[in-house]
């Protein structure tokens, strides 16, 4: 039996049999296809319409388009939010991450450190000898490691002073994000004066302590803070 003969007979038989099977099955006509099936078929037909037999290329393009649309939507929403509401979500997220930046100060114990002549001045007062006019002491806390003092004025401005005793291998993390930073001198010790929005602070180390003075909602703080800091060394 030749190949052609097989093909011919198979063709005749198959055609006859196929005529017996209705294309539109009446039993299936009663079946309501699920929304999931219809959704998938719609996607498939879309792919076939534009990509022919390469439906998987169609799927890929469709997915890529969805990703691009999502990214563009996020960018648009971000821009609209920034222009209309003044809130830029992306910048906020980036800033939030940047705010995590900290300055780390590592210390040797006082007995391990070699001092210069300038290092000889020591804090003589627990409280600053000078406090700007109108400020009243609100908090006065102390423990074995240091002290914390806070003053307020009637207009809502505040000043705080934080002092920590330096010990061996001590590390102190301070805010590493600021608008302005200057190097200053407090009683011969080198320190920093930093400004961040409505906050400003001075911080320095001497022989024994790490000091930090913060001012909030004050104007011309540098001079006042330095003067307060210097007053700690007055006899």
């Amino acid at each position, binding site marked *: 039996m030749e190949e052609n003969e097989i093909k011919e007979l198979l063709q005749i038989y198959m055609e006859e049999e196929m005529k017996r099977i209705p294309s539109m099955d009446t039993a299936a006509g009663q079946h309501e296809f699920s929304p999931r099936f219809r959704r998938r078929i719609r996607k498939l037909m879309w792919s*076939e319409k534009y990509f022919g037999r390469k*439906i998987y290329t169609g799927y890929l393009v469709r997915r890529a388009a969805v990703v691009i649309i999502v990214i563009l939507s996020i960018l648009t929403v971000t821009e609209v939010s920034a222009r209309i509401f003044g809130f830029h979500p992306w910048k906020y997220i980036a800033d939030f991450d940047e705010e995590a930046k900290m300055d780390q100060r590592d210390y040797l114990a006082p007995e391990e450190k070699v001092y210069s002549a300038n290092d000889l001045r020591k804090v003589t007062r627990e409280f600053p000898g000078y406090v700007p006019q109108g400020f009243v002491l609100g908090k006065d806390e102390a423990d074995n490691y240091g002290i914390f003092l806070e003053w307020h004025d009637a207009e809502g401005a505040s000043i705080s002073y934080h002092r920590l005793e330096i010990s061996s291998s001590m590390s102190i993390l301070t805010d590493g994000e600021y608008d302005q930073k200057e190097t200053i001198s407090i009683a011969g010790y080198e320190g920093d004066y930093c400004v961040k929005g409505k906050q400003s602070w001075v911080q320095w180390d001497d022989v024994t302590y790490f000091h930090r003075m913060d001012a909030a909602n004050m104007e011309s703080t540098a001079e006042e803070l330095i003067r307060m800091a210097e007053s700690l060394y007055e006899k």
Partner: protein
Amino acid sequence: MVLALIALVDLPEERGKAEGLYKKYNDLMYTTAYKILKNREDAEDAVFHAWEKIICHMDKLSDIDCPAAKSFVIIVTERTAIDLYRKRRRRREVEVPIAECESSPYFITKDQRLEEVEFFDIFRSLAKKYSEVMILYYINQFTAREIAELLGLSEAAVLQRLHRGRRRLRREMETYGRK
């Protein structure tokens, strides 16, 4: 990149065929799949996957109304349903005799006119696993590799089934000729 993408896309005349096929055969495909899977969701899944396969090989279909197109659609759906059944057998409550289904004749319709043609009985007695491969090979003009891809078989298995199907057919035909 765009040129590469354009090169991947079929010509306009080759596109859009699926919708006509869908309208004509989707219900038939569902019934075919349901008969095997006995579950609506699974039958829909099988129909969907069968559509994916059909569309990928649609270049072989010149006319969607011809019997060859219909047999192609039925064969692919049935095979997809059987494969799906095997994959999901573990969570199946009703045991469907798939082995029996596979070894049964491909065409099960009964028609007095066809009964009278004796050699049709020979084809009818041929197991489905042989006849589906033979139809795709001889009628739909698929290569062994394409049939393997379509039915989820190895190329060697397709060639083996073709060989065995031909042998059985020849043997039966010889017997029929002697009568």
